[in-house]
C-alpha cells in the first residue's frame, strides 16, 4: 500500500514538472518500441514455428545426433573465437596502452590515432585487406612470396585468420579502457611499494597488475561480446568455420527461416547478455580507480631499456601492420585486377559511382539524419539518469545501453519480425501510455478525466471509421485543417502567440504529409531528364530525401499531436480545454491507428531507428560523463538568480555539455556509416546501405569494388570527424578547462 501511495505521489510530482514528464515519456516510448519490443519479438519467435505452435525444434538440434555435432561445433567455435579475440585483443590493447602511457615513445599522438582507426572503419575493412594481402591471391602471399594454395592447404581463411582480424578490429576498445586506467593509476602507490624495497617485477605483479584487473576484466568481457556480435569479419574470412552470427545471417539470407534465426539469436543472446550484466554490475563496480577523475600529476615512466624497448617495438610493428592493411584497401581499389594485374586503374571507382551512388547517398543521408536523433535522445536519457529521481531510472539506463550491447543481428531480426506488419500490440500500448499520460497530467477532477478519456476515444473511433471511408490522405488533411483552425483561433484570442503557432505549425506539417508529393514529383521529372549515369542516379534520390522529412509514419504523427495538445492544454482554461483535449485526442487516435500503423519495414524510418538504437549508448555515456562533471549547484546558482529551467538549460547546461554533444555526434555518425548487422535485413530496393553493397559485391567476387566502397566510407567518416573538430575548435576556444569527453 505504502509503495503504491509513493508511486502516486511521485506521479503527481512528475506532473508538476512537465518537461521531465515529456522527456521521460518520449524516451521511454522510443526505447520500448525500438529496443525492448524487437528483442522480445526475436526471443519469442524462436519458440514458435510458422503455424504459431510452440516448438523447440532448433534448440533440440543441439542435442540430437544428426544436427547436434554441427550445431555444437558452431557454438564451440563461436566461443573459441570470442575467447581468443578477447585475450589477444586485451593483451595487444595493454601493450599499446603501456607503451603510450609509460614508455616515452616517439610519435605518441600518431600511435594513439592509429589505434583508434579500426573503430571508425567499416566492419569488414580489416578482413578485406587481410585477404588482399594474405589471401590466396594476396599481394604478400602470392605476389611476393609466390605461395600456392592447393585445396586443403592452410590459408588465411578459417579460425586463425578470423581471430587475427578480430583482434586488430577490436583491440582499440581494450586500448582505450586500459590507457584510461593506467593514466589514472596513482603513481604514489607504486612509489610506496618501491620505497619498501620491492623490485620492478614484484611491483608489477603485486601492485600494478591487481589495480588494473578491473580494466583488464572489463576489456576482456567487452571484446568477447563484440567479437561474438560481429558479422562482417566472419562472413568474409571465416572460410569453413561458421560462427553463430554468420549462421543466423545465413538462416535468413539463405533459408529465409526466421524461427531458426530467432532461436540461434537467442542462443547468441544468452552469453552476450550474461557478459553484459557481469560487466555492468560486477566488474565496473570493482574498480579501485575512479575513471571520471582527472589524471593525477606525475606519471611513472619506464626507464629500464629491457622493458621499454620490447613494448615500443611491438607497438610499432603492429602499427606498421595497421598502416599497411589500410594502404592495401586503398591500393586494392585502384588496382586493375588484384592478384593478377596490380597496375593503376580508376575502373572500380567509376563502376562504384555508377552502380553505387544511390547506396552511398542513402547511407550518408540516413546516417546524418539519424545522428541528431540519437544524440538528442542520448542527452535526454543522460540528463534524466544523472539529474532526476524517478522509479524505473535503472531500467531506462539499462535499456538505452542494451540496444548497442546486444548483437546487431538480434536487433535486425527483431525489427523485421516486429515491423513488417502492423505491430498492433505496440500501437495499442503506445496509445494507452499516451492516453494515461494525458489524463494523468491534466489538473482536473477524476470525473472530468474519465469523461475526457471516453469522449476522446469515442471521437477517435469515429474519426477512424470515417477515415477508413475517405482514406488516410483526406483524414490527415482534415486533422491538419482542424489544427490550423484552432491555431488561428488561439493566435487571435490569446495574448501569448506560442500555443497558436505550435498548432499552426503542426497543421502545416501534417498537410505537407501529402502536399510534399507536389514538390517531389516535379523534382523527380526534372531528375529523369538527366542523361543516364551517375548524376541521374544521384538526382533521382533527391526527391525521396525531401519526402523523408515530411512523410513521418502516421502513428508517430499522432503521438506528436497528442503530446503537443497536452502541452497546450496545461496552459489553457478548463472551458476551452474541455473541447480541445477530447477533439484532438480523437484526432491522434485516428492517426495512430490509421492505415497500417508502424509497418515500417521498407521505409527509411526503420533504418533511422536502427541507426539511432545502435549509437544511443555512446551518446548516453558521453552525456552522463559530462553531466556528472557539472556540479549541480551550478544549475542551482542559475536558478536562484531568477532563471527558469529553460533559460538555465539554454545558457548554462547546454554550453557545458556541448563537448559531449559534439563527441556524441562524431560517434553516432561513425557508428551509423559503418553499421551492418542491425540493418542488413532492413535494406530495401529503394533504401540501400553501403555496407550491404560491399557484402554483395564481395559475394560476386568484386574484391576491388568492395575496397573502393570501404575507402569511401572511411573517407566520409574522416571528413565528418574533421568538420566536427573544426567546429568544436571554434566553439570551444574560449572555454579553458573543458576538453572533449569521449564517450568511449
Amino acid at each position, binding site marked *: 500500500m505504502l509503495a503504491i501511495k*509513493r508511486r502516486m505521489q511521485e506521479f503527481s510530482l512528475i506532473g508538476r514538472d512537465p518537461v521531465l514528464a515529456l522527456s521521460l515519456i518520449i524516451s521511454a516510448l522510443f526505447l520500448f518500441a525500438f529496443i525492448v519490443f524487437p528483442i522480445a519479438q526475436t526471443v519469442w519467435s524462436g519458440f514458435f514455428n510458422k503455424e504459431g505452435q510452440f516448438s523447440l525444434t532448433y534448440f533440440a538440434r543441439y542435442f540430437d545426433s544428426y544436427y547436434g555435432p554441427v550445431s555444437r561445433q558452431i557454438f564451440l567455435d563461436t566461443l573459441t573465437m570470442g575467447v581468443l579475440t578477447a585475450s589477444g585483443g586485451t593483451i595487444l590493447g595493454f601493450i599499446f596502452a603501456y607503451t603510450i602511457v609509460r614508455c616515452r615513445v616517439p610519435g605518441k599522438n600518431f600511435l594513439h590515432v592509429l589505434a583508434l582507426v579500426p573503430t571508425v572503419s567499416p566492419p569488414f575493412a580489416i578482413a578485406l585487406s587481410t585477404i588482399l594481402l594474405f589471401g590466396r591471391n594476396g599481394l604478400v602471399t602470392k605476389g611476393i612470396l609466390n605461395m600456392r594454395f592447393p585445396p586443403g592447404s592452410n590459408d588465411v581463411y578459417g579460425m586463425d585468420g578470423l581471430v587475427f582480424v578480430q583482434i586488430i578490429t577490436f583491440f582499440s576498445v581494450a586500448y582505450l579502457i586500459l590507457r584510461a586506467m593506467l593514466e589514472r593509476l596513482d603513481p604514489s602507490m607504486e612509489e610506496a611499494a618501491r620505497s619498501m624495497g620491492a623490485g620492478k617485477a614484484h611491483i608489477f605483479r603485486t601492485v600494478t597488475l591487481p589495480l588494473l584487473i578491473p580494466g583488464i576484466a572489463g576489456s576482456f568481457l567487452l571484446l568477447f561480446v563484440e567479437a561474438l556480435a560481429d558479422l562482417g569479419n566472419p562472413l568474409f574470412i571465416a572460410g569453413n568455420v561458421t560462427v553463430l552470427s554468420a549462421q543466423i545471417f545465413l538462416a535468413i539470407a539463405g533459408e529465409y527461416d526466421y524461427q531458426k534465426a530467432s532461436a540461434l539469436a537467442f542462443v547468441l543472446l544468452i552469453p552476450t547478455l550474461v557478459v553484459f550484466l557481469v560487466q555492468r554490475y560486477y566488474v565496473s563496480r570493482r574498480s579501485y580507480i575512479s575513471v571520471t577523475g582527472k589524471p593525477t600529476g606525475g606519471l611513472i615512466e619506464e626507464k629500464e631499456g629491457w622493458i621499454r624497448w620490447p613494448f615500443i617495438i611491438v607497438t610499432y610493428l603492429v602499427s606498421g601492420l595497421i598502416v599497411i592493411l589500410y594502404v592495401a584497401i586503398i591500393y586494392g581499389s585502384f588496382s586493375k585486377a588484384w592478384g593478377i594485374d596490380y597496375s593503376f586503374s580508376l575502373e572500380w571507382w567509376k563502376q562504384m559511382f555508377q552502380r553505387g551512388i544511390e547506396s552511398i547517398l542513402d547511407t550518408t543521408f540516413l546516417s546524418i539524419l539519424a545522428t541528431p536523433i540519437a544524440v538528442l535522445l542520448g542527452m535526454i536519457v543522460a540528463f534524466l539518469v544523472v539529474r532526476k*529521481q524517478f522509479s524505473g531510472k535503472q531500467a531506462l539506463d539499462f535499456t538505452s545501453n542494451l540496444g548497442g550491447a546486444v548483437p546487431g543481428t538480434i536487433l535486425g531480426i527483431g525489427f523485421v519480425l516486429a515491423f513488417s506488419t502492423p505491430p498492433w500490440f505496440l500501437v495499442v500500448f503506445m496509445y494507452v501510455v499516451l492516453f494515461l499520460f494525458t489524463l494523468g497530467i491534466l489538473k482536473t477532477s477524476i470525473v472530468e478525466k474519465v469523461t475526457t478519456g471516453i469522449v476522446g476515444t469515442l471521437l477517435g473511433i469515429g474519426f477512424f471509421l470515417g477515415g477508413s471511408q475517405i482514406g488516410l490522405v483526406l483524414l490527415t488533411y482534415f486533422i491538419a485543417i482542424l489544427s490550423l483552425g484552432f491555431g488561428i483561433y488561439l493566435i487571435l484570442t490569446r495574448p501569448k502567440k506560442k500555443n497558436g503557432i505550435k498548432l499552426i505549425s503542426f497543421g502545416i506539417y501534417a498537410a505537407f504529409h501529402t502536399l510534399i508529393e507536389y514538390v517531389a514529383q516535379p523534382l523527380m521529372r526534372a531528375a529523369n531528364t538527366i542523361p543516364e549515369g551517375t548524376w541521374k542516379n544521384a538526382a533521382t534520390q533527391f526527391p525521396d530525401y525531401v519526402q523523408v522529412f515530411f512523410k513521418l509514419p502516421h502513428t508517430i504523427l499522432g503521438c506528436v499531436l497528442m503530446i503537443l495538445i497536452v502541452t497546450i492544454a496545461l496552459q489553457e482554461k478548463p472551458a476551452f480545454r474541455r473541447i480541445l483535449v477530447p477533439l484532438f485526442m480523437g484526432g491522434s487516435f485516428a492517426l495512430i491507428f490509421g492505415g497500417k500503423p508502424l509497418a515500417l519495414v521498407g521505409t527509411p524510418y526503420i533504418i533511422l531507428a536502427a541507426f539511432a538504437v545502435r549509437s544511443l549508448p555512446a551518446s548516453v555515456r558521453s552525456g552522463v560523463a559530462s553531466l556528472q562533471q557539472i*556540479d549541480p*549547484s*551550478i544549475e*542551482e*546558482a*542559475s*536558478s*536562484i*538568480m*531568477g*532563471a*527558469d529551467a529553460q*533559460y538555465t538549460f539554454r*545558457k*548554462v547546461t547546454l*554550453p*557545458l555539455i556541448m563537448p559531449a554533444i559534439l563527441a556524441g555526434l562524431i560517434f553516432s555518425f561513425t557508428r551509423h556509416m559503418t553499421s551492418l548487422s542491425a540493418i542488413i535485413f532492413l535494406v530495401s530496393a529503394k533504401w540501400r546501405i553501403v555496407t550491404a553493397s560491399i557484402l554483395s559485391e564481395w559475394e560476386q567476387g568484386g574484391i576491388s569494388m568492395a575496397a573502393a566502397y570501404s575507402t569511401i566510407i572511411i573517407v566520409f567518416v574522416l571528413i565528418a570527424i574533421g568538420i566536427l573538430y573544426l567546429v568544436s575548435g571554434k566553439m570551444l576556444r*574560449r*572555454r*579553458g*578547462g*573543458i576538453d572533449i569527453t569521449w564517450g568511449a
Partner: protein
Amino acid sequence: MFLVLENVVKRFPPRGGAAEVTAVNGVSLSIEKGELVTLLGPSGCGKTTTLRLIGGFEVLTSGRILLDGVGIDNLPPHKRGMSMVFQSYAIFPHLNVFENIAYGLHVQKIPEPEVKRRVRKVLELVNLLGYENRAPNQLSGGQQQRVALARALVMEPKVLLLDEPLSNLDAKLREQMRTEIRRIQQELQITSVYVTHDQIEAMTLSDHIVVMNQGIIEQIGTPEEIYRHPNSQFVANFIGRANFIPAKAKSVQGREAVVECYGKEFQVSCKKGITAGTKGVLVLRPEMLWISDREGVFKGVIKRSVYLGNAIEYEVAVDGASLIVMETNPKRMKLYARGTSVTLDAYMDLAHFLLA
C-alpha cells in the same frame, strides 16, 4: 519578522536501500530584516537542508516558510528573489567574471548600461575591479569566492543565503573573507542566512546563532548568550570547550541558582525552568579556571601540560574526572610538571548550571 520558518519538516524518501531520512525535524525560526543568522552544527545536522528549503531547492514535507508575511513554500527558486553563495562557488566555467556577475541581471532583461553600472559597483565592493574579462579558471580560490559573493550581491536579494562559503579557503584567507563578508553585509543591510560548521566563523559573523543537531534546533541566541548560557551539553561542547562538573541545584530563582558541588555551594546562572533539587552539571569554561598557590575550589594532580605560547593548557585529574584548564594570564605562566599536586581556583560565579 522578515523571514519565518514554521515547524519545517523535510524527509527524504528511502533510496537505493537506504532508509527514509528525516533531515529537518520541526524547525521554527524567525529572522529580522537586515540581520545575519548562522545555522551552526555538525555535518548531517540538517543545516544545509534548512538553507536549501529556504532557497526552494527542496520541497517541504510539512510546515511553512514565510517571506515578508507571504508563504513562499510553492515558489520555485527563481521566483523567490533570493540569492545564494555556494560552497563550491558554482561559478559558470564558460562565462567570464563580468558575465558571471551580470547573469542574473541579464535574466531580468535589465538594460545594458544599468547592468554595467551595477556590476561595477559590486566589483568595487569585493575589490575585484579590473578582473571583468578573466575566465574563472584564471582566478585564485579567494578571487573565485569574491566573484561568487559579488554575483549574489548584485541581485540586491531579499535574502542572501550562504552555504559554507569559506570552507574551501585556507585559514588566513578565511579570516580575511569572514571580516569582509560581515562588513559588506552590514553596509548593505542584507538579511542573510549563513551555514557553517565552524564555531569561530559563527561567533565572529552572526547577529544570532542557531545551533542545530540531528534535524532540530538546540538553541537560538546571540553569540554571547550561546557561549555564556548554553542550553545543553551539546551546545556547550560544540561552541568552545567546556568542563562538566556534577552538581545539584539547592535553590532556584529565575535564571539564578545556588548549586552544591564537591561539598561546596556556589551562586551560578542556570537554564530556564530548572527546579530546586535537580541534579545536573556545571559548565566551566577552561579559561575560568586557573592554578592557584592559595587555597582554591578543587584539588588535583597535573596529568598533562602543553605550552601554547599565548596560553598554557593543563589537564588536571580531579576526583577521578579530568578538567581542562586554560591559563591565559601571562603573569601566571609557570609551567607545572606532570604529577604535580595543585589547587585549582575558578570564577564560579561565571559557571552555568545545566541538566545532565
